[in-house]
């Protein structure tokens, strides 16, 4: 009972700061996902291209990103980029998350593209479409639709992963929790509350995603 009371107190004392921080979390997640989609599309195209060189570049990128911890990538990028150009922590973090996501999204797109029935491409070839035409008009639209559920998952993962940019002082949710806890000396309650923010965001998004998937099924 006592715990619940303190949690509530902490919640009431922190929510102005947390709501602001939540906005930053959502922004950095959105930017990371947009960048990730651009990178992902680029590298997915490289992977399915017929050029060995492009394939290799994409493979190296994906292997490195998937094989190293995100927090290392964030630090590497932050200290790497900021020696070249002046960049805020927010943008350094967003770019790092974007590059990180790009590798996973590339695999999502590649899987979706290769998952389209071979017959679709054969039918378009037999109608006289070039490879590019059949990709653009037949394969990509179907693959994109199939990518949306896994992309939604990736969004959820990114939302949670974005907490790691606290390390480069981006004032997002988790950084805010650290700051609050250092001031109110109620670490347990503060981290419980911040966990709640993430949980609610994820649940809202999961619900939207499920709604969309159901809609897809109905359309089919």
């Amino acid at each position, binding site marked *: 009972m006592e715990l619940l009371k303190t949690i509530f107190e902490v919640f009431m004392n922190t929510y102005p700061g947390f709501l602001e921080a939540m906005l930053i979390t959502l922004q950095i997640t959105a930017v990371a996902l947009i960048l990730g989609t651009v990178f992902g599309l680029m590298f997915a195209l490289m992977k399915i291209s017929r050029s060995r060189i492009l394939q290799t570049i994409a493979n190296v990128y994906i292997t490195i990103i998937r094989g190293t911890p995100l927090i290392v990538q964030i630090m590497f990028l932050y200290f790497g980029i900021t020696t070249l150009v002046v960049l805020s922590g927010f943008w350094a973090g967003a770019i790092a998350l974007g590059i990180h996501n790009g590798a996973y999204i590339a695999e999502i797109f590649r899987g979706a593209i290769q998952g389209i029935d071979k017959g679709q491409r*054969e039918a378009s070839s037999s*109608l*006289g479409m070039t490879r590019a035409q059949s990709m653009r008009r037949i394969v990509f639209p179907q693959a994109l639709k199939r990518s949306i559920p896994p992309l939604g998952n990736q969004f959820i993962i990114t939302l949670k992963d974005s907490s790691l940019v606290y390390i480069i002082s981006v004032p997002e949710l988790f950084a805010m929790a650290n700051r609050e806890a250092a001031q109110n000396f109620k670490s347990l309650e503060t981290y419980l509350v911040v966990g709640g923010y993430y949980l609610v965001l994820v649940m809202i998004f999961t619900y939207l995603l499920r709604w969309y998937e159901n809609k897809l099924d109905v359309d089919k």
Partner: protein
Amino acid sequence: MLKGSNIHKSFGDLEVLKGIDLEVAPSEVVVLVGVSGSGKSTLLRCFNFLEHINQGTIEIDGHEVNPKKDKLSKIRAEVGMVFQHFNLFPHMTVLENVIEAPIIVKKMKKEDAIVLGKQLLEKVGLSDKADVYPSKLSGGQKQRVAIARSLAMEPKVLLFDEPTSALDPELVGEVLEVMQQLALEGMTMIVVTHEMKFARNVANRIIMLDEGRIIESADPETFFGNPTHERTKQFIKLVD
């Protein structure tokens, strides 16, 4: 119209076509039969350049196709293909399926393509389905859309690879009817099918493929009445 000479095709070590000579005259309907694995699909796919032949030549309308020099997409547009599993585009309506290639490949104006598409849908008896998605159609209807889609490119030859094999028995007739109508209108066709009644009634010539070779080529009456090859006799017994 379509002429293959000495066509050889291998997949790795497996030689599937071992020197096929086949010439199809304008408006001729050739039915291709043979046991599973004899190379029927592969032969059709070679004529459509979905497979590259290892040896031999293919002529379309007297023009020998050179897969290295010619634009294959252009040649493929002249040879239509109807697949066993329809391969309709699920993200497009029936009408969009039909007009896609004329617009994208032939650069036809959309209005003109729509007129053409509607005509073709009427021809295959599906005018009322123009705006529905393929998933809402029966197998027979899907295959008729696929035929209309091929016809929209005005191919010189139409290839059918077991167009009714994936259909429920009661839906086979509606597809064969459309094909028979096309044959009457003078469409040049090569049809792989197990529908012997269709072969008997519609084909000008029936060809038996066996282990990658043509072992019998005759008009339906001779083919069924007086086949020369032992394998053909066995085959006819099997299907009749």
